[in-house]
């Protein structure tokens, strides 16, 4: 950390979030608000079969309908474009925006209808006649791995995309030495972040300039690269407009297939084309479902509660195509032991295709499911030993004097003080009193349980998991950038090079610049150039922007400050090393000073007063490499992310045994993400993350039936937590600065979500343990609790 020695002026203070002003007035600029002259609209024809050969498509009636301009089939599109990119080296798993020859999941887009309005396009979509030949399908992941299973992509020869085992440390020795071991299976249900804004894109092709303009609701690293590749056009002919507000994403707004489709249509029809998913298209074919994962876990532990070693097999059902999703098994490797001193790990990562909707990146990129498995292991060790779950965690925590701490899989954790954060939560909630309250509720005839979870938020989004899981991928940088310009009147404008989905990047950047330049952040304008005018960015993924955009802004501001000092010192007749910068002025050792306005004037107008060799104007740029990044993996080990935030959850749940409905009576989270840049933003991320985690734990699932049909196709079936379900949450703060970032900040974009499912699951299992039952798959639905409890109670009565 190279934070200024002075106390912060703007960083960590409760300043307003500047983006909010436009949102409360209804003046956000979302993709659906962008209307271009002569714009056409797309509706999709979807397969009703989970697996079927496409025999023929008859578009004649649709083409004859009012206002219809085109009907595009997969065959036509595939002839004009290259397949969408796979993350892994699986060239025979080809994917196009529209199904080619075969539909591979129910809801998959088979044809696109383009018309003057969305309503007319929908009308005509119903007139497209597709002749299907249904073939055998598979939706169960273990069945899909069996030898007799139908193949989702016969050309690939298997449904398995990835099956890789890592051995980090002496797993066998630790297992044979340890006094005890236990095994279990838990399952993370298929859910997603399901933003309230569906994905949308508007594409326009200028045939004279041969330029593709794109406006999209996007959160995707290297988005324009992928569009250019698929459309076979140069990257400098793709201009993505980044001044589009994204109505929520939390990882999923990737939209490559939508964009390639809309762009191709715009190009061939010579008119702007808009494709905005409706909710059904979003839920069944937006290709934005999250992980669906079975964990088979064994842990070896001692009688005092110390966990020596862990074997984890994660089997992930990625759905019908291989996108970026298999990497979600890779990122958790960077925190595979959680906050614990587990000495060795064997990790088997299996990514398997089935005839379900395609999986995409979801908040945490696979970390929250993994944390759920690790935390379940800790609870089970405690139960097996008859120990308190808090005590088992304490005995396994990495100690604050052990940082930087190297975990078996090759990542060095930067910093933390887990004992202190846990103690603060225990004090805030009064753990003893909480146990008494739980027991009192039990005395009243309710089921009551306490949940505990402690976990890490790896942050600073690197992509080390790519070369780790795909040897052909040699990516070792995941940079982000900022450029500052001081204009001729002395006003500051800075750029950010990505879209945002509510993370407050304009506030982040202006706060950091204000802090370094010692000027009011409100006076700093933040703009988002289009991608052709942008510096490299890898978008806000992996809890990275406070670290990476904040870091780039800081470094750019430092460079700008150096220029100002050089100009001032030259004018004052002293050495730059002897002059100092203060709130926009440069001061010589003798106290003489030059103010901001004059420094700007010299830079912009008085070349004769500039130090020799200095270029005129005032501009600074910084492209930042991820701290600690830059190396390829060795022996299956790699430094994953640079920073590691910590969270400790504790809650009390009460359940009416007849209804089975869990009610969270108290929820406290301890959160340490180092130096907080904007407290409002971090608080919102944490509370929102817990709400999202509650959904994953109790409500949300993209359930399928055996026929391969998605059962949750609307918000009547896919249950999003409302204000009734989300409890009041108390946050306890702690700050352990990261040594690797400019202010000591760490990431917080996934906070709350990473531990809430584990904590809530733990609370429910604590509530029902005395009945001899347990819940080992998420979501734990009200109906499941009610039914299982009733059955167990009947059995107990009979006994």
């Amino acid at each position, binding site marked *: 950390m190279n934070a200024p020695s002075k106390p912060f002026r703007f960083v960590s203070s409760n300043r307003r979030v500047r983006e*909010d002003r*436009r949102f*409360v007035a209804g003046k956000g600029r979302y993709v659906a608000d962008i209307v271009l002259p002569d714009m056409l609209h797309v509706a999709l024809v979807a397969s009703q079969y989970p697996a079927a050969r496409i025999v023929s498509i008859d578009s004649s009636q649709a083409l004859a309908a009012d206002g219809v301009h085109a009907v595009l089939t997969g065959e036509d599109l595939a002839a004009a474009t290259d397949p969408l990119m796979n993350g892994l080296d699986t060239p025979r798993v080809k994917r196009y925006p529209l199904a080619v020859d075969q539909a591979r999941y129910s809801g998959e887009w088979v044809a696109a209808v383009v018309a003057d309005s969305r309503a007319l396009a929908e009308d005509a979509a119903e007139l497209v006649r597709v002749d299907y030949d249904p073939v055998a399908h598979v939706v169960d992941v273990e069945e899909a791995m069996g030898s007799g299973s139908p193949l989702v992509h016969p050309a690939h020869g298997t449904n398995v995309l990835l099956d890789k085992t890592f051995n980090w440390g002496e797993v066998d020795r630790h297992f044979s030495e340890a006094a005890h071991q236990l095994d279990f299976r838990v399952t993370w249900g298929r859910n997603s972040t399901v933003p309230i804004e569906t994905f949308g894109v508007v594409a326009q092709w200028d045939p004279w300039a041969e330029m593709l303009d794109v406006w999209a609701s996007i959160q995707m690293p290297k988005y324009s690269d992928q569009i250019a590749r698929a459309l076979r056009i140069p990257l400098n002919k793709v201009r993505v407009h980044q001044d589009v507000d994204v*109505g*929520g994403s939390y990882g999923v707004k990737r939209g490559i297939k939508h964009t390639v489709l809309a762009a191709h249509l715009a190009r061939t029809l010579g008119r702007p084309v808009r494709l905005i998913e409706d909710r059904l298209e979003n839920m069944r074919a937006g290709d934005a479902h999250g992980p669906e994962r079975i964990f088979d876990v064994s842990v070896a532990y001692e009688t005092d509660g110390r966990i020596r070693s862990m074997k984890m097999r994660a089997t992930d059902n990625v759905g019908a195509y291989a996108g970026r999703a298999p990497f979600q098994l890779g990122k958790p490797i960077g925190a595979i032991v959680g906050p614990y001193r587990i000495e060795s790990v064997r990790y088997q990562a299996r990514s398997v295709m089935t005839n379900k909707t395609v999986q995409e990146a979801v908040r945490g990129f696979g970390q929250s499911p993994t944390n759920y498995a690790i935390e379940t292991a800790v609870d089970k060790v405690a139960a097996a030993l008859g120990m308190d779950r808090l005590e088992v965690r304490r005995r396994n925590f990495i100690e604050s004097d052990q940082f930087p701490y190297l975990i078996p899989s090759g990542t060095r954790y930067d910093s933390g003080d887990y004992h202190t954060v846990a103690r603060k939560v225990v004090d805030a909630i009064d753990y003893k009193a909480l146990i008494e309250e739980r027991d009192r509720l039990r005395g009243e005839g309710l089921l009551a349980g306490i949940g505990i979870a402690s976990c890490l938020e790896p942050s600073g989004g690197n992509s080390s998991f790519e070369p780790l899981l795909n040897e052909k991928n040699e990516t070792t940088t995941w940079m982000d950038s900022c450029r500052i310009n001081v204009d001729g009147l002395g006003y500051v404008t800075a750029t950010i090079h990505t879209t945002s989905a*509510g993370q*407050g990047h304009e506030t982040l950047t202006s706060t950091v610049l204000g802090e370094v330049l010692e000027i009011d952040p409100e006076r700093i304008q933040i703009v988002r150039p289009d991608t052709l005018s942008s510096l490299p960015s890898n978008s806000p993924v992996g809890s990275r922007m406070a670290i990476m955009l904040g870091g780039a802004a800081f470094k750019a501001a430092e460079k700008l400050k150096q220029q100002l000092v050089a100009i001032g010192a030259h004018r004052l007749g002293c050495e730059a090393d002897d002059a100092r910068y203060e709130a926009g002025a440069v001061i010589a050792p003798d106290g003489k000073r030059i103010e901001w306005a004059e420094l700007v004037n010299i830079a912009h107008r008085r070349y004769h007063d500039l130090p020799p060799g200095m270029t005129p104007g005032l501009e600074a740029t910084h492209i930042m490499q991820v701290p600690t990044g830059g190396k390829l993996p060795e022996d299956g080990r790699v430094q994953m992310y640079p920073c590691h935030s910590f969270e400790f959850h504790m809650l009390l749940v009460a359940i009416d045994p007849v209804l089975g409905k869990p009610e969270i009576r108290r929820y406290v989270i301890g959160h340490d993400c180092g130096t907080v840049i904007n407290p409002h933003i971090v608080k919102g991320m944490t509370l929102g993350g817990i*709400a999202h985690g509650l959904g994953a734990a109790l409500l949300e699932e993209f359930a399928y039936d055996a026929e391969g049909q998605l059962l949750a196709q*609307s918000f009547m079936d896919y249950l999003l937590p409302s204000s009734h379900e989300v409890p009041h*949450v108390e946050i306890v703060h702690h700050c352990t600065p990261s040594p690797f970032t400019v202010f000591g900040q760490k990431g917080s974009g996934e906070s709350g979500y990473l531990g809430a499912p584990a904590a809530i699951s733990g609370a429910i299992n604590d509530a029902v343990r005395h009945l001899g039952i347990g819940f080992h798959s998420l979501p734990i639905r009200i109906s499941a609790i009610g039914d299982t409890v009733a059955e167990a109670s009947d059995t107990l009565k009979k006994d």
Partner: protein
Amino acid sequence: MKVELNVNDRMVEIDVEPRKTLLDALRDDLRLTGTHTGCEHGVCGACTVLVDGAPVRACLMLAVQSDGHEITTIEGLAPAPGELSVLQDAFCETHGMQCGYCTPGMILTAHALLQKNVTPSREEIVDAISGNICRCTGYGQIVEAIEFAAERLARANEPRAAAAE
């Protein structure tokens, strides 16, 4: 067919298909894009507008049904361009949003609550906004915003000395 709408105290006449929702008419015909499309089946509340002062889901109402009613959208809430209402300002003060997509509907719902209940309890606020889904915030700072706005509105009419306490 022709419909005469009273939107944000302005009479407008539009020609719409009978099947067109109020949501689509507001967005496409009147270019009032502050009203957002979320689920289009009446669950998420992103399209909430006020019809005669009561929160209504514009995706479940046809444009032709709103003929003769007073419709308020988020664009009708600010007292003047660039000037926020007390409630809008309170959402900024507590950061009662992230991506801003559910925010117009949420604010209109809260506005309707505060119009009829100047001292809502936490439970009443939670109840009032339970039909508006927010995926970003977990509702905490939204509830705080509405509480804060209620407090400010209540104090606005108190004698100056008391208000300054």
